[in-house]
């Protein structure tokens, strides 16, 4: 295959993807007028209000074909310039039929940040949401088994929050000392 042919193929593929994304965004905007849309380097991003989060994600899955949840993660905007809400949840979606990708962001704020769980939509969200709960302390309403996944169960803090000290609060030194006599 010649170079210009490759370029042409890439261009056409990008075009079809952009087209499907445009349709998706249009349908999303019709159902949820409060959704904000933006684009970065050819990837579409939407910001969904917290209250409509579950319904919007359900619509994206059932009607727009986003059958795969790539990742659920979170950003703490505590010291971020211009941020109005503290936590930004990020859902990365993929339509495996068309190759279309979409980034969905949901902002939640203190106190007691919480959002609807999407385990009923994508089974794979189970451990991802547990990880976000463990490290950021975002409560996922309706999660079937919201326990810590990485840190020990007796841990009380959520250490990826920006106000948690990097060296911790003494958890790493809170262990019994074993002497030779106990051997």
């Amino acid at each position, binding site marked *: 295959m010649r170079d210009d042919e490759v370029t042409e193929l890439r261009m056409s593929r990008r075009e079809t993807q952009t087209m499907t994304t445009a349709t998706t965004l249009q349908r999303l905007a019709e159902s949820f007028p409060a959704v904000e849309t933006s684009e970065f380097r050819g990837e579409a991003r939407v910001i969904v209000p917290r209250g409509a989060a579950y319904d919007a994600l359900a619509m994206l899955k059932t009607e727009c074909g986003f059958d795969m949840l790539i990742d659920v993660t979170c950003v703490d905007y505590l010291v971020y310039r211009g941020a109005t809400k503290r936590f930004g949840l990020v859902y990365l979606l993929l339509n495996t039929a068309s190759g279309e990708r979409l980034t969905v962001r949901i902002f939640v704020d203190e106190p007691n940040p919480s959002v609807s769980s999407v385990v009923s939509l994508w089974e794979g969200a189970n451990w991802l949401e547990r990880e976000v709960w463990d490290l950021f302390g975002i409560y996922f309403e309706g999660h079937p088994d919201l326990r810590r996944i990485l*840190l*020990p169960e007796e841990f009380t803090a959520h*250490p990826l929050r920006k106000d*948690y*000290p*990097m*060296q*911790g*609060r003494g*958890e*790493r*030194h809170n*262990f*019994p*000392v*074993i*002497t*030779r*006599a*106990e*051997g």
Partner: protein
Amino acid sequence: MALELPDNVVITKLDDLVSWCRKNSLWPMPFATACCGIELMATGASRHDLARFGAEVFRFSPRQCDLMIVAGRVVMKMLPVLQRIWLQMHEPKWCISMGACASTGGVFDTYSVVQGIDRFIPVDMYVPGCPPRPEQLIQAIIDLQAKIQKEGTMFGREFAEPERQLPKRALRP
């Protein structure tokens, strides 16, 4: 009156004889959690050949080991496991802290990483390096052998000495 002894008889202390036996058949317990573990495996493999020093029999059961080699960083979730395995090993037993992370936490000065296993279990020998080369680990084993020969006793009286009781950097109340 000089004692007449045949050429094939040696007189020694029982403590020295027992220590000599022990030091030449150390059975390591590989507690390898990170990249130091790769160097530990290289030490046991054919090129560096730990068998030359009588310590090649790595066992994955603490009941069959007398030398724990902690190779790699230990996080706070792993420390109770480390302590349990240490307690399961039979006396007399020794511990080598291999590498910067096991000895001090290394570059991982974070909430989850234990800042040196010698805060919570006794350590006999420290190996610097990130990770240490197999030659360094072999040197540590040779030094540990010298230590066992020098201060070892048949019933492990040396372990009862006060300075060997507490781990070196244990946080005292």
